[in-house]
């Protein structure tokens, strides 16, 4: 399977492995490549934004041009030409859609192919979906049902127009405009994403999810998501992502902010399956993402669960700021790298309040020439009395050309803290594989079973149907990486 020549059979085999690699042939309205203040004005105008939003973007842009791209991650890639990217692309359709009937059937078909039917009769029960295609949200299901419970679930571009007070209050309150190179770029050029607001005391009656799809060539996707759970509210949110197979790299620089007030709970799950590039490392998505949650209220709880199997490069550290007393942060992660994929991922847990607890369970799987890095920081501030953290960091290696690296940092400013760190590195044991083969399983079934077993602690944090999805995805991703 390491042959460097491309034959039609191999192409077919390759596309079998990444079954979301198709392109939707749809007419789109795409901005010319390049990034200047006028690009930002164009995006803001396309989105019919109020003046304050444009000002916010321009402020970010003016800061961004003074910033340098970070070089500390353990990933290598050729320099990105930010002037060669198009920052806005939207499928052409009549503006101001009133119902799904007006959505281009090609788009509905695309999401159906991805396993996310949007039409009313086919929808997944109990899951509301916001479908983001390139730079715009094309449909959001179950909005009326959610509205009855007081939950707002809509594209963020719409929230900026319809709920400006909430957006102005919370946007940038967790990830400041000047936070980091990619986040600041996102502030300047973000196009769409989801907005969730769960009011005081409301348990969101269904799972919310956003499905991100990159389709257009030479474009970047800059998604922005903001989730707010008021006092005593709870919500579970899931995002999925896929993209066509292309020889060029595409940039996805997202920012996600979560805010949990007193006694609120937010569970945020990601199944990231962007196109990973081919076996020689051609193409694939650069997934440079800033995700952060703020446990602002006492006893608030934010939990991140991520299954990262796609992208040629993943750079993301979903983090928690544990500000409220007794607040709780969790990070459960599975990152799989194969082919030439590189992942530098982990989390930051910042303990500020008293009696704050955090749990980190990170599982890295490296196959073929994949490089997997766990980078984590646990920081206990001086006032964080009786803070507790448990970190478990396990790496699984398949073959002898891959790599696993861990960079855990602990900064403890309070002597009452309890910190635990466990780390293991293991190889998929020949003995384990042989045992399963001897019981009649094929080699791929055997490896998939072993790897899924390795990930079980993380998968059980996912909502049921997505845990099944994650298990399947992992098995598909591992096909062809055995032996």
């Amino acid at each position, binding site marked *: 399977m390491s042959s460097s020549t491309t034959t039609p059979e191999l192409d077919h085999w390759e596309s079998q492995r990444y079954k979301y690699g198709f392109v939707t042939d749809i007419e789109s309205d795409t901005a010319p490549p390049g990034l200047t203040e006028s690009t930002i004005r164009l995006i803001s105008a396309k989105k019919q934004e109020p003046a304050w939003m444009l000002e916010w973007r321009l402020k970010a842009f003016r800061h961004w041009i003074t910033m340098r791209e970070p070089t500390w991650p353990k990933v290598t890639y050729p320099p990105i030409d930010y002037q060669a990217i198009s920052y806005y692309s939207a499928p052409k359709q009549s503006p101001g859609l009133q119902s799904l009937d007006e959505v281009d059937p090609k788009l509905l078909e695309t999401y159906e192919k991805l396993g996310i039917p949007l039409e009313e009769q086919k929808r997944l029960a109990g899951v509301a979906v916001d479908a983001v295609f390139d730079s715009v949200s094309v449909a959001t299901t179950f909005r009326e049902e959610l509205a009855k419970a007081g939950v707002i679930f809509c594209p963020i571009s719409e929230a900026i127009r319809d709920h400006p007070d909430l957006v102005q209050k919370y946007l940038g309150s967790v990830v400041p405009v000047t936070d980091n190179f990619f986040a600041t770029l996102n502030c300047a050029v973000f196009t769409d994403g989801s907005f969730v607001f769960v009011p005081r005391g409301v348990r969101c009656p269904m799972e919310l999810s956003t499905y991100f799809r990159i389709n257009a060539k030479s474009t970047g996707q800059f998604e922005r998501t903001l989730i707010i759970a008021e006092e005593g509210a709870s919500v579970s949110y899931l995002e999925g992502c896929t993209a066509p197979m292309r020889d060029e790299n595409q940039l996805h620089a997202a920012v996600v902010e979560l805010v949990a007030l007193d006694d609120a709970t937010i569970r945020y799950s990601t199944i990231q399956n962007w196109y990973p590039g081919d076996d020689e490392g051609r193409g694939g998505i650069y997934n440079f993402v800033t995700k952060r949650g703020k446990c602002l209220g006492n006893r608030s709880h934010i939990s991140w669960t991520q299954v990262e199997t796609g992208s040629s490069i993943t750079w993301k550290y979903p983090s928690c700021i544990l500000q409220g007393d007794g607040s709780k942060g969790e990070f459960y992660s599975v990152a799989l790298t194969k082919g030439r994929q590189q992942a530098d991922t982990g989390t930051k847990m910042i303990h500020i309040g008293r009696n704050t607890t955090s749990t980190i369970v990170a599982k890295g799987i490296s196959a073929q020439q994949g490089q997997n890095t766990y980078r984590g920081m646990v920081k206990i501030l001086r006032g964080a009395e009786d803070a507790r953290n448990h970190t478990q960091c396990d790496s699984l290696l398949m073959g002898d050309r891959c790599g696993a690296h861990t960079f855990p940092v602990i900064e403890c400013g309070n002597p009452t803290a309890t910190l635990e760190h466990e780390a293991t590195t293991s190889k998929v044991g020949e003995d*384990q594989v042989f045992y*399963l083969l*001897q*019981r009649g*399983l094929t080699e791929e079934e055997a490896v998939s*079973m072993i790897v899924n*077993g390795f*990930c*079980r602690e993380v998968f059980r944090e996912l909502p049921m149907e997505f845990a099944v999805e994650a298990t399947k995805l992992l098995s598909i991703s591992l096909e062809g990486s055995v032996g």
Partner: protein
Amino acid sequence: MLEIKNLHASAQGHEILRGIDLTVRAGEVHSIMGPNGSGKSTLAQIIAGREDYEITEGTILFQGKDLLELEADERARAGVFLAFQYPVEIPGVGNVQFLKAALNAVRRARGEDELDTARFLRLLRERMALVSMDERLLKRSVNEGFSGGEKKRYEILQMALLEPSLCVLDETDSGLDIDAMRIVADGINALRAPTRAMILVTHYQRLLDYVQPDFVHVLAGGRIVRSGGKELALELESHGYAPFMNGSPGSDTATIVTNTAGAGRKAAIAGTGA
């Protein structure tokens, strides 16, 4: 059922098996005994399809098919079962999930329908009674946190569930206390059938107090240096393997005695009074 002819095998350039001949027919139980390092486990692993060995000469036919042409998983689905000497732990993989996947893989290969969870669990409970396995163990991961005896019983349970045609038990008796030995032996005896053959690889004679083999073979220096009935095991028990050790590699004095079915049967009957 199984026909091994002139089998030579080596690992890392070192010859371990130096011409094994062995014929096992359906319904028979053969015991292969021998000192440490004689090649007993190697033979068991090669039958099961472990790839760490190079077969330099010889053939293995299983039900008339060339076994060496089949991958380990194909052999398993064709009915070859190895009860491991050291069953490996697989963290995070639940026993029920594992057993069900294995059974359905084998059933598919036999042209039988797959069992759904309810039917599977019914069958599993029935077979668990055979080896007195605690149902709570099913909640754990494969072999994880099992005692030595539980691991061995679990191997027998898998054998009972998968119903293979050829069972190779690699030192299943090692590390068992007397009660566990009896349970394992009862399990093995219950699985003896006219359509099924068994090879018991063992160092000590004591398992044979409970399971009566039809034939006993002594393996030393990579060859079968003697074959006989049950009485051969008793002879080994009193004299040890030393008398056979001059038949070790390089020596031409080894006598290869072919199976004498009559003697074996007689011995087996004689021993049943115990």
